[in-house]
């Protein structure tokens, strides 16, 4: 039981990296961004391929992973400035699917659908106990960082932009700069989640990087109250526990999957229903 609790705590901590930083983009910035997994894919493959397949030292692989995240952030910024909000929403999914398909098809380097087994545990994280300790510590640090970013000048600029491009522009807020920083932060959140998660699994498999994972993040942020720091934290704890907790209901095996889908659908719908006034800023109508 004890080990399983540690496992759940680690899962929550690892999800917090992504969720809390995604909350900055989607929740606070109201940018319709559904391509969070694009960061995960590029970041983790840029890290794992050189590390495991070409025996690079850890720090240089890590550097490449960070570089990958920065490039993707720049690409998303460029797209978000060129496209309309909802168009960007759908095209960010398309970008995710494109990266996924590159990873699946570039078999000489990524091993395609076979994934990369044998990823080493990161230093100081060999046993489950120490892993949990380090992950919880890091996610706490990451959240403190995000808290200050959200409360500070950058958070205010992001909010101003989300309420209106034009007034914000007239205040001298650079939309491209704010978007780039927001995407970069959410990208590094995704990288942190994946670094820890895949070294925990000791396996990088593209089947873990499909779109349903994104739906889970959207659900958490909406349920927690888009933009709310505390809300998203609580929602992560509850929903991750709930997702794992479903295993304990002893349902018939062929019912577990469909019922989980339906349950999560209902939760997401209820969350939007409850927060329908606040998820997106109210539009003025004539």
């Amino acid at each position, binding site marked *: 039981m004890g080990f399983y609790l540690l496992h759940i705590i680690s899962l929550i901590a690892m999800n917090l990296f992504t969720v809390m930083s995604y909350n900055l983009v989607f929740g606070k910035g109201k940018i319709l961004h559904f391509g969070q997994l694009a960061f995960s894919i590029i970041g983790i493959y840029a890290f794992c391929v050189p590390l495991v397949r070409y025996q690079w030292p850890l720090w240089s692989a890590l550097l490449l992973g960070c570089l990958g995240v920065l490039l993707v952030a720049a690409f998303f910024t460029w797209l978000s400035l060129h496209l309309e909000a*909802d*168009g960007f929403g759908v*095209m960010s999914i398309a970008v995710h699917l494109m990266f996924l398909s590159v990873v699946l098809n570039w078999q000489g380097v990524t091993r395609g659908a076979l994934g990369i087994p044998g990823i080493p545990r990161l230093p100081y994280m060999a046993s489950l106990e120490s892993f949990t300790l380090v992950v919880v510590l890091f996610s706490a640090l990451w959240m403190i960082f995000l808290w200050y970013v959200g409360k500070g000048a950058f958070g205010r600029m992001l909010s101003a932009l989300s309420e209106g491009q034009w007034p914000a522009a007239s205040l001298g807020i650079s939309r491209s700069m704010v978007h780039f920083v927001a995407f970069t932060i959410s990208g590094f959140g995704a990288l942190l989640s994946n670094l820890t998660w895949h070294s925990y699994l000791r396996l990088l498999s593209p089947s873990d990087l499909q779109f349903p994972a994104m739906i889970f993040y959207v659900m958490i942020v909406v349920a927690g109250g888009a933009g709310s720091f505390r809300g998203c934290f609580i929602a992560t704890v509850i929903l991750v526990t709930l997702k794992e907790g479903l295993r304990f209901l002893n349902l018939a095996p062929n019912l577990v999957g469909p019922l989980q889908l339906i349950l999560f659908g209902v939760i997401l719908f209820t969350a939007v229903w409850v927060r329908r006034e606040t998820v*997106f800023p109210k539009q003025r109508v004539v």
Partner: protein
Amino acid sequence: MTQLIANGLIAGSLAALIAGGLALVYGVLGVFNLALGQMVLIGGYSTWWFHQVAGWALFPSIVMGISIGALLSWFTFEVFIRPFYKLHRFLPLVTTIALSLILDGMILLLFEQRPRSILSGAKETMHIAGAYVSKEQIIMIVLTMGILFIFAYVLHSTSFGRKIQAVVQHDHAAMSLGIRAPALHRFVFILSGVLASCGGIYMGIDTNLSPTIAFSITIKAYAAIIAGGKGNFWGAVFCAYLIAFSEQFVVGIHWFGAFYVPPGYQNTVALAFIIILLLVKPSGLFSSASRSA
């Protein structure tokens, strides 16, 4: 080469059918429906059920499949769209993600995780001008063209079509002219559901249905709509065909006599093409540019 064109027509007709109805929804209501792929599947699966399990003849099964699709989209509109889209037009984007999860679960419970094919018999293929096509495929291509022509006629030459165009241009102005915009919204949404189930039925007849293809159907349809200039019916139809043709040509052509594009990149090339197109013309192929800061 003729085979490639035939393939493009087959795939394009299916895509155009789905994307056309959706473009109207986007134009009239301004909302995205991310449960579209699941609606396609439900239409196809219920036809399969009536034909293969209940043992009905094909035609009444198709009618039932379409009716169930219509009922489902009506229900979707009332529960997942109408309470939200006036508050903010992005809200249905999230509620329909919720719906897609629920429908995914329902499909698994009702129809199981197995491939299903509506017609179990053989399909006769004909050899026309160097291309193999089956009777069903020809019917589908012709039927899609027919539906598109009816749309063209209704949209451009009837008062009802003009009402739709008025609502597309300005909701409130149209209402002040006495057009019942809310009723029109419902009608257009159900219509898109009907077209989606037609797409599902066609897919179940032509190849087979399996529960996990829903999402890629949705994404491709929206790529066509965005590239076509959002809400522009003809733009969406054109781009649906364009995407389908580019997908066929990408894998089927020996490029510059030197290499084939690996077919694993089939979808990627189409999506990348759309992104590049949007960067050149951000508001889509067939629409005027909008203002932005």
